């Protein structure tokens, strides 16, 4: 899949979120979750200290910035980047549709905090890599103890949106 095709999906995603994604972390987690739901955006994810991460997506965002199609600006007073489309984005990238399931997921998750998406995507990743039930919860506590306040909502969303059994 060519970079322009992949960025076409990312452009649509940014627009559906409302024009700005607060944090690269949030974008990586969202793309992972959309792919997990069956909408192949062309990215391969690995699991690292901050959860699911796609080196290719990081690269595409930088390429999008160097093409003046995507803007990545540091959010003052934080370590996070605000990702949005530039005014000339439409000249550089053509939108590519997302699936209707993806649109539903974006609608539910677009205003959620990055920490919640990190907990949710970690649950989904663990679940698809041999962790279920109490083992999943234990592993989540081991890997992401800092996200404990997000667990309940994340498990509820994992169950509702991604059929992760939470009992």
């Amino acid at each position: 899949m060519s970079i322009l095709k992949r960025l076409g999906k990312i452009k649509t995603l940014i627009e559906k979120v409302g024009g700005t994604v607060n944090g690269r972390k949030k974008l990586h987690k969202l793309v992972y979750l959309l792919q997990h739901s069956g909408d192949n955006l062309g990215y391969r994810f690995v699991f690292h200290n901050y959860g699911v991460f796609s080196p290719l997506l990081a690269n595409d965002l930088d390429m999008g910035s160097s093409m003046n199609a995507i803007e990545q600006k540091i959010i003052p007073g934080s370590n996070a980047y605000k990702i949005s489309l530039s005014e000339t984005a439409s000249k550089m990238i053509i939108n590519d549709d997302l699936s209707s399931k993806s649109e539903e997921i974006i609608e539910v998750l677009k205003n959620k905090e990055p920490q919640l998406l990190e907990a949710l995507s970690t649950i989904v990743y663990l679940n698809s890599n041999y962790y279920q039930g109490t083992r999943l919860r234990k592993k989540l506590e081991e890997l992401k103890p800092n996200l404990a306040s997000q667990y309940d909502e994340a498990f509820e969303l994992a169950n509702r949106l991604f059929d992760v059994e939470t009992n």
Partner: protein
Amino acid sequence: MNIFKKGSLSIEKEEKNKDHNYKDKIEKQIEENLLTTPKIIRDPIHDLIKINHKLILDLLDTEPMQRLRRIRQLGVASLVYPGAEHSRFAHSLGAFHLAGRMYNQIRPERKAADYDRLVVQVAALLHDLGHGPFSHLFEALLNELRYKYTLSHEEWSGSIVMEHEEMTKCFEEYGEEFKSDVKDVITGQFKSSLLKSIVNSQLDVDKFDYMLRDSFMTGAHYGRFDLNWMLRNMTIKNVQMLDEDGESFGLEAIALDARRGTSALEQFLLGNLYLYNHVYYHKTVQCAEGVFIKILMRAVNLIKEGKDIGIENNVLNCIVSESKISMEDFLELNDHLILSWITFWSKNKDIDKSLHDLSLRFLSRKLLKAVKIEKVSISVYERISKRVKKILNNNGFPPDYYFIVSDPARVAYKKVDYGEIFLFEEENNPIRYSQINTNNHPISGAIIGPAKYEHHFIIVPKEILTEVIQIKKEEEN
């Protein structure tokens, strides 16, 4: 934030004791199975690879591991670099060997029957079990087809470790948790970022081996670097990480002696970038990869149309029916099988004209040709694409299979989000490589810059090449 802050100290201690008791028990088993006379395997890169544990020998003899002999490390690159016929099997052995060396360097005090060492060595040995035929090309094919159940090769590797009968038997003596830990190191879910980073980071044994091996086998020596010096100057340090959300947390990481190791690190990072530019992203390699993917896309689409392609295969059927590929079916795939299909299609022109022609081109290395696009924007691409597709149609080449866009890109160093390389200077706190003083290290400044290569090709049949070059010139002006 303290990463242990959630549990009380007593719970934490209890957990640690449980962990130690478990590890002690397994280490007894590991000790029993140490080989008194190590097996030696000769290797062109590392010379003698010593295997001193029965588990490694058992794993080498399993079908999933032996299958890696039939998957080329560099996919179709041997069409450009004739020596590049080496397999994922040889690379996996190299990664196993280096994981042991790196572990011994950072934890020299550990005994021979150390739990963590065996976990990380086994993970390095098995990390590529999940590669499909022609290595990364199978993943690329599934992405092109927008297959919805696509898994990364690491996730496939994890599945094979957990579920394959022979694998399970090998791990039986060491318990379910040992097996799960191996899987977790491969898939990144392991609790210790230190062990994960040996197998998967910007400074891991996977890269160490593939750079040296690919350089040697292709004859393109860009990827050579001072491995022994790099390893010698590694140690463990506690580092502080700053999350995007502003939370900081500490973890153990491998760090490199800045004074002694920076030049070797620069050589390594630049070597990696050059290998990508000259070998993996070579324009003829891109053409061969493109043709390979189009052949299989055509085959899948013919099945979708209800046509008989002369091949019956469960994986192709799963792709067509959008159902999950089973591990057993996945493991049936290898380079030899796919080449046998392509050979069959090259000899049977009645099945489908494009399938036959592309297969013939692939086998006889009469590939499509790449035209480099210098000015990249959707408008340039669109205008060129529109005109080229018209010419393709006029010449009887269906654009869906004879028009390929390829735009590989690689940065020398990723300074975002994961796997930063750490440097230390005597007693000072370790720093991220991206924070190095670039006045003292100008080459590092360029690497972090970031130094990068990006290419944009459109790939078309040789028969229309002259016209396409003319179109490109016109549209770029």
